[in-house]
């Protein structure tokens, strides 16, 4: 199966790879995994006091589509509010990356990751 140009671009030049301090009150961390393929994804956001995502980082151990999906999400969510970010749909990711049907689950994983990161941040703020 051939990867789309968009996937190859993100795979070869992943954006925003890295790690933030998960203990930081301004950081939300989303950890998700796809048991069937053993992929693991960590997506982190840094949120300003007025609820805007200032920065995002990811690390994904998985196939090219999983890496590209998470890379794309970190680009997209920068500048978004938490509500906007949690409304991201996997179909938007799949469409942008031209993912074939067998790789749709990679975009689902990225959607789950950003939702988990937002939830983690909100939990921290509420606590």
């Amino acid at each position, binding site marked *: 199966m051939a990867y789309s140009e968009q996937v190859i671009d993100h795979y070869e030049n992943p954006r925003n790879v890295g790690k933030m301090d998960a203990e930081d009150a301004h950081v939300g961390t989303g950890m998700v995994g796809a048991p069937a393929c053993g992929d*693991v994804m960590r997506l982190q956001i840094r949120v300003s006091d007025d609820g805007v995502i200032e920065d995002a980082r990811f*690390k994904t151990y998985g196939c090219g589509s999983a890496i590209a999906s998470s890379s794309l999400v970190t680009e997209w969510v920068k500048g978004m509010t938490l509500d906007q970010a949690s409304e991201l749909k996997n179909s938007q990711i799949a469409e942008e990356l031209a993912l074939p049907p067998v790789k749709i689950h990679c975009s689902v*994983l990225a959607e789950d990751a950003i939702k988990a990161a937002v939830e983690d941040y909100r939990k921290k703020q509420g606590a």
Partner: protein
Amino acid sequence: MDITRNYFEFLGVPVSFDVDQARLAECYRDLQKQLHPDRHSHQSEREQRLAVQYTAYLNEALATLKSPLKRAQYLLSLKGIDTLSDSSNQLDPMFLMEQMELRERAAEAVEHDDPEAELDALQAYVSSDFKQLQQSFAVAWEAGELEQAELLVRKMQFSAKLQSDIEALEDRLFDD
């Protein structure tokens, strides 16, 4: 021979996670002998075709029952639980965190003073972890705790993937 029976019954071993591998190999050889093409050359085309079908089923059965992960997945599938589909269901974040760290450690091993020793140590850790998951699965399965058994299979899937990733890394680094 009856390919509508499950792999365990087909091969003639008890339906259980604990499979006596020596017994399994014996049962396999017996069935294989019965299916050998030389014994069927005088038979009709239909019977020969059946023998080919049986052989395929037999090989699939053996491959499934030999592998701890495939065996566990297959046992659950007999109960109607599908662990092969790609659902990214919510797993314990602590478990995922550890999986992430182990993968990071594998990736960083390349720059280690002694990458081979580092990867060997990591592989030893992961495989003992995998064995523990197997033992827990056996206990959960025997007790009929299917939900717990399913969770353990999902963990085994991550562990198996990590083991094969480490092997691939070792092949790339040391097979010159």
